[in-house]
């Protein structure tokens, strides 16, 4: 069985490298990109099993990747800025919302939960 594919979207290189390493060690097929446009291109061509995205992607908001996705993608939002309204919007879209710093164990638990959830609970419809 192929490992679940995880796409990480974050404009911070250190965060990308850390998340890829963490997820790869946990057995996932993790890919990371640094821009909204790269992420949108990958999602359009080959949607991942799970999306992990930041909110602040330079001129874009990572939530747009969820809203604009051609199909339902389980999503975890990781951000350095707590915003209750954006959190509510993310959760309405079916995404988990985590504020940095996120402990590796906590993230892996949420990743596993998202990938194990029934399709209808994974993300926006």
């Amino acid at each position, binding site marked *: 069985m192929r490992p679940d594919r995880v796409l990480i979207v974050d404009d911070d290189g250190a965060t990308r490298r850390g998340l890829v390493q963490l997820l790869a060690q946990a057995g996932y097929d993790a890919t990371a990109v640094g821009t909204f446009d790269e992420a949108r291109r990958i999602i359009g061509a080959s949607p991942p099993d799970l999306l992990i995205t930041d909110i*602040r992607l330079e*001129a*874009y908001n990572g*939530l*747009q990747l969820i*809203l604009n996705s051609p199909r339902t993608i389980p999503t975890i939002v990781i951000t350095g800025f707590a*915003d209750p309204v*954006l959190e509510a*919007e993310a959760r309405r879209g079916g995404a988990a919302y985590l504020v940095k710093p996120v402990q590796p164990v906590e993230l892996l638990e949420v990743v596993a939960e998202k990938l194990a959830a029934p399709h209808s609970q994974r993300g926006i419809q």
Partner: protein
Amino acid sequence: MRISSKASPRGESPAGLQLAASDSRVQGGPPPEGWTSLIGTRANVLVTGPAEALSAFVRDARPAMREPVRWAANATLLHSQPGHTLILTDVNALDDAGQQWLMQQLNEPDGADTQVISLSSVPLYSLVETNRFDAALYYRLNTIHLKI
């Protein structure tokens, strides 16, 4: 805090952004692909582009907006009709006080139920990069970003 409004009393479009349903001079090309469904998500939308293209965009997007639709050059009409669409023109012109006031309004329960469609004729992110526009407000207004 008192902020003057340029919006018309009836919520019609300000003079600088008259709807141009039959205006053949409108330029700017078609709206981005999938924009209608994005408007329908009710998330806040930031639209950047030339003024004429913004006018054409609003004309084309109007059927997908939540009624009633109100116009404002700032946020003074935010709470006039909870659940409505507020088209915020010239958002790039908001000064520090106006930005703070708008953020406060968006944090109110009624504000969260209003879909704000912000229009900017300059790349608003460039103002964020130069600390002339609040980053938190930018991402709040910019759940969806359409460049036209």
